[in-house]
């Protein structure tokens, strides 16, 4: 992909925040580009999180984070419908297991109400009525009905897809190597695949945001990886949940959650351990055991045998949380950095805020694009679909189930390859369709799925990547 071009706004970072900003700007006549270091959008914390879109109940009141998360909260139904993204407002139970927990519940309710969020203190029995899987030892709980679950991979891809359809250019596998500067303004972005000129730059680079600012000659700040380790458990268990179940948050961390996902698998996590290497995504037995034990204390029905996958992901921690402002030294560099824990939850309002910051800084983002798409055409999925006969009548490829664990059909896979940002790896296909992401983790379907990827991307099988281009499936052709 040639990198040369001229853009009014260049967004550095194709995670959930960068892509939300791209979507927002795609409704204007500005020429916008996103540069992303990885081979696909949503490869960092945006694909490794619990998938909760919090209404903001446990944000610190009065902070920018609380303001933007609570402002985002009411709009999720409409937003996700427009982005063909699964979403359900199922609510959270913060369960008190100990006296200390119970004492903290009152504070949690106050905090929620200070943020304008509905929260009710309930007894242990009432908690179990709302969610029968909650432990019999629960003393009390706070119920936060407005919290929701969202498919964060589909959300990030949905933001990006709509932006791309509206003309935003995505430069993937394009890590930023430097900037050109004229006086105090940034004028161009150098990437590994070429240079593009930029009227304005948005720094949404997640864990790399501090480095981007440094390269641009902007204000110095630090970002570092805050690692979370997770378990993914079987749909059969997650399908029994009605609520997100968590413990009682403290100052340091929100704690471990048991989160049913939108396709009804179950996520446990996250932990919160500062690391140095942003690529350190190794899981360790003792950390995973800690997560499992914490989860089982909340929901005793959880068992190790239900586990499908374990993984780690790094959230961008920073010395300033929610650094949303024009840089003090580079007036046309807008930071959207330090979004540590609520990137998903805050993304809609963060995008609006960045749009305003760009307008204030003089970027041409005020005129509406007359023919911008407001919504993506939904692609129906077979899993849980109430009327499979209708699906088949619309497209016979719904009859070909390729991934049996998640019931992903050839129609859905073809739909993914027809996107403006199609998959470029097996994992890219998994993010868009869930193929290979089910309980057998591809043991049955990976060969067939990789064959389809190979065909659709016109890549020889031994060059096909599981994720990044160098992460190939195999090492070469077999002996004939």
């Amino acid at each position: 992909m040639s990198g040369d071009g001229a853009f009014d706004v260049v967004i550095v970072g194709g995670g959930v925040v960068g892509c939300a900003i791209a979507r927002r700007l795609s409704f204007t006549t500005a020429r916008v580009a996103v540069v992303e270091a990885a081979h696909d959008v949503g490869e960092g914390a945006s694909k490794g999180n619990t998938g909760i879109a919090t209404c903001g109940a446990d944000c610190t009141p009065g902070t920018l984070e609380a303001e933007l998360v609570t402002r985002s909260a009411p709009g999720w139904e409409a937003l996700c419908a427009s982005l063909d993204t699964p979403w359900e407002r199922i609510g959270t139970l913060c369960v008190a297991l100990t006296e200390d927990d119970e004492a903290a519940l009152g504070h949690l309710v106050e905090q929620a109400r200070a943020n304008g969020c509905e929260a009710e203190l309930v007894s242990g029995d009432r908690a179990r009525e709302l969610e029968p899987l909650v432990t019999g030892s629960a003393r009390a709980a706070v119920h936060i009905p407005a919290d929701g679950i969202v498919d964060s991979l589909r959300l990030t891809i949905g933001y990006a897809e709509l932006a791309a359809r509206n003309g935003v250019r995505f430069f993937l596998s394009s890590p930023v190597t430097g900037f050109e500067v004229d006086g105090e303004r940034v004028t161009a972005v150098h990437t590994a695949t070429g240079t593009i000129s930029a009227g304005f730059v948005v720094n949404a680079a997640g864990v790399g945001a501090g480095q981007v600012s440094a390269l641009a000659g902007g204000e110095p700040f630090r970002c570092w990886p805050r690692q979370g380790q997770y378990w993914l458990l079987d749909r059969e268990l997650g399908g029994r949940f009605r609520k997100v179940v968590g413990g009682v948050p403290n100052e340091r961390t929100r704690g471990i959650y048991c989160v049913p996902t939108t396709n009804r698998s179950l996520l446990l996590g996250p932990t919160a351990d500062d690391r140095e290497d942003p690529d350190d995504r190794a899981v360790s037995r003792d950390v995973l055991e800690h997560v499992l034990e914490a989860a089982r204390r909340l929901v005793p029905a959880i068992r190790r045998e239900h586990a499908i996958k374990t993984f780690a992901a790094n959230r961008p921690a920073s010395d300033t949380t929610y650094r949303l402002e024009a840089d003090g030294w580079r007036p046309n560099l807008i930071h959207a950095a330090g979004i540590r824990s609520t990137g998903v939850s805050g993304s809609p309002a963060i995008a609006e805020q960045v749009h305003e910051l760009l307008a204030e800084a003089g970027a041409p983002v005020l005129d509406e694009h007359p023919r911008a798409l407001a919504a993506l055409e939904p692609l129906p999925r077979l899993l849980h679909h109430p009327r499979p006969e209708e699906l088949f009548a619309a497209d016979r490829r719904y009859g070909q189930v390729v991934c049996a664990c998640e019931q992903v059909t050839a129609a859905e896979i073809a739909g993914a390859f027809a996107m403006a940002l199609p998959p470029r790896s097996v994992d890219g296909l998994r993010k868009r369709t869930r193929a290979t992401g089910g309980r057998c983790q591809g043991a049955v379907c990976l060969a067939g799925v990789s064959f389809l990827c190979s065909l659709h991307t016109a890549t020889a099988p031994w060059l096909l990547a599981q994720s990044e281009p160098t992460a190939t499936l195999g090492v070469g052709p077999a002996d004939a």
Partner: protein
Amino acid sequence: MRVRSPIGDLPFTVTGVGREGGELVVHGELGAWRSQVRMSAADLPMLARAMRGPLLVAGAAGVVVLVARAIR
């Protein structure tokens, strides 16, 4: 005929061969699946290359000759 596919070794039975416009259409059954192989002149170079590579279909030599004759 046998086909090595990503889901394993499968029998391919030809049930009919026809010509539709500039294409040769081989109707067949891959086990219980109905399938069609459509070939045109543009496919000949690929078939010739495939005979040297790992995706060798038993009997391809005869098929290539058949295709070449049918569509020229």
